[in-house]
């Protein structure tokens, strides 16, 4: 029936009140003349209320004349009357139209700038650059060329590898990807030495250019020259500077020490608890409960509720519930095997982070020492890796 109601609303109808003595006849005549009446209600002995379509109401005149009853309009309802009213108040319509237009117009301006993806480059720096390039709060979105802006930003800030600007509603979202600086390369014609990157014992030297100055089994420290760029020319006795390079494999050692107490204090809930409620309004916190916590040792669990929250917008009202659980401290002796495993694992995790990806693990050694109830574990890992690193030869130093 909703469809029917809607249809009636669109067509428009009036609620009429008919006053007369022969109301039944009035209804019958309406039906005979194909005037559609609905929701007919008897209000009084001589009064009747009914709904009738606009067209039907116009046809009613003849019947009224014939029967001599009075018809008055009580309510006008429906879309046609609404339009009629609106026609009378043209300014309202115009105002609404312009308001709508203004809203659309204002929403084409950028209100805020959001930057994501930057880690090393300051947000303020990017924002400043964008502002000078013409993208700032208050700029119309149709007056800026995003692709051009992206390119210009990339050119101006060489620390960025990629820039993506997207305008979502009144927000400009800028996504950046920073450049990862490539390792500095030494030009092929520049004379250089190959030096050790780490301390180690030399295992193998492959000198592709330059003179190898260390042998297998030599212990080198970080910074020691492995392959010299100064090549001695034996027959003549002079020397020549070359761009030396090559691979030097050496055994290196990584160490890590971790400790773990063999006794541990564990907190166990006794089942007693105290609930405190705090109402937070912006930066003001109001405690709703009084009194101190009566437990010696306790754990706090916090929960917060934000009422009237819609997406990220909401009232700055927060209801914090703090639950204080009473705990007993219990001393637990940890199994030695378990502690060893734990220490070993943690130390190994640390070491593995340091070891370069290409290195080959040769040997691992674990030493445990228990002292004053604490277990110390020392893990040593022996790996084979390339420790060659090129360094520009400082001429004049030698």
């Amino acid at each position, binding site marked *: 029936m909703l469809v029917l109601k809607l249809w009636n609303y669109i067509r428009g109808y009036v609620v009429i009140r008919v006053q007369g003595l022969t109301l*039944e006849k009035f209804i019958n005549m309406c039906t005979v003349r194909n005037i559609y009446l609905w929701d*007919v209600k008897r209000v009084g002995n001589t009064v009747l209320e*009914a709904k009738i379509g606009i067209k039907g109401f116009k046809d009613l005149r003849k019947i009224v004349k014939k029967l001599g009853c009075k018809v008055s309009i009580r309510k006008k309802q429906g879309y046609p009357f609404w339009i009629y009213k609106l026609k009378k108040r043209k300014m309202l319509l115009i105002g609404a139209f312009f308001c709508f237009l203004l809203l659309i117009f204002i929403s084409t301006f950028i209100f805020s700038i959001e930057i994501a993806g930057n880690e090393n480059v300051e947000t303020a720096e990017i924002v400043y650059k964008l502002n000078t390039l013409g993208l700032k709060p208050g700029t119309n979105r149709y007056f800026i060329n995003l692709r051009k802006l992206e390119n210009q930003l990339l050119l101006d800030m060489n620390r960025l590898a990629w820039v993506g600007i997207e305008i979502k509603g009144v927000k400009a979202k800028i996504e950046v990807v920073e450049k990862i600086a490539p390792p500095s390369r030494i030009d092929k014609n520049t004379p250089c030495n190959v030096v050790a990157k780490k301390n180690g014992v030399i295992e193998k030297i492959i000198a592709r250019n330059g003179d190898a100055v260390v042998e297998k089994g030599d212990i080198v420290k970080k910074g020691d020259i492995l392959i010299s760029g100064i090549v001695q020319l034996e027959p003549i006795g002079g020397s020549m500077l070359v761009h030396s390079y090559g691979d030097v494999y050496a055994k290196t050692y990584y160490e890590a020490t971790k400790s773990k107490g063999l006794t541990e204090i564990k907190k166990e809930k006794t089942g007693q608890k105290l609930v405190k409620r705090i109402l937070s309004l912006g930066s003001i916190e109001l405690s709703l409960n009084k009194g101190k916590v009566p437990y010696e040792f306790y754990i706090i669990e916090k929960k917060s509720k934000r009422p009237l929250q819609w997406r990220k917008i909401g009232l700055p009202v927060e209801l914090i519930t703090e639950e204080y659980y009473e705990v007993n401290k219990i001393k637990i002796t940890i199994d030695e095997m378990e502690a060893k495993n734990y220490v070993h694992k943690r130390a190994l995790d640390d070491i593995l982070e340091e070891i370069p990806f290409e290195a080959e693990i040769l040997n691992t050694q674990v030493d445990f020492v228990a002292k004053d109830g604490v277990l110390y574990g020392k893990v040593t890992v022996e790996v084979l890796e390339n420790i060659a690193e090129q360094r520009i030869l400082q001429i004049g130093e030698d």
Partner: protein
Amino acid sequence: MGESGGIKKGLAEILELPKDIILDLPKIIMIGNLQIYVENHKGILEYTDNRIRINTKSGILCIMGKNLMLKNIVIEEIIIVGEINQVEFID
């Protein structure tokens, strides 16, 4: 109904045709005591809050109840809503 009515009735029975069409009789449908639907009526005779009398071919249909309202009225059908207590044919 007269003689022709009798023939028609017989015919309707033989051919299994709907009687409300052949004999021009009212078709009355009630939904609980909330709504009554009368098809093929011959006009309203009386209409008050608690009594509605409708003229039909099979006599006067008298509907008694409370807060009766004519929800819909066209040449062929009437829908009455309200609290219906009694439906009765009066000759």
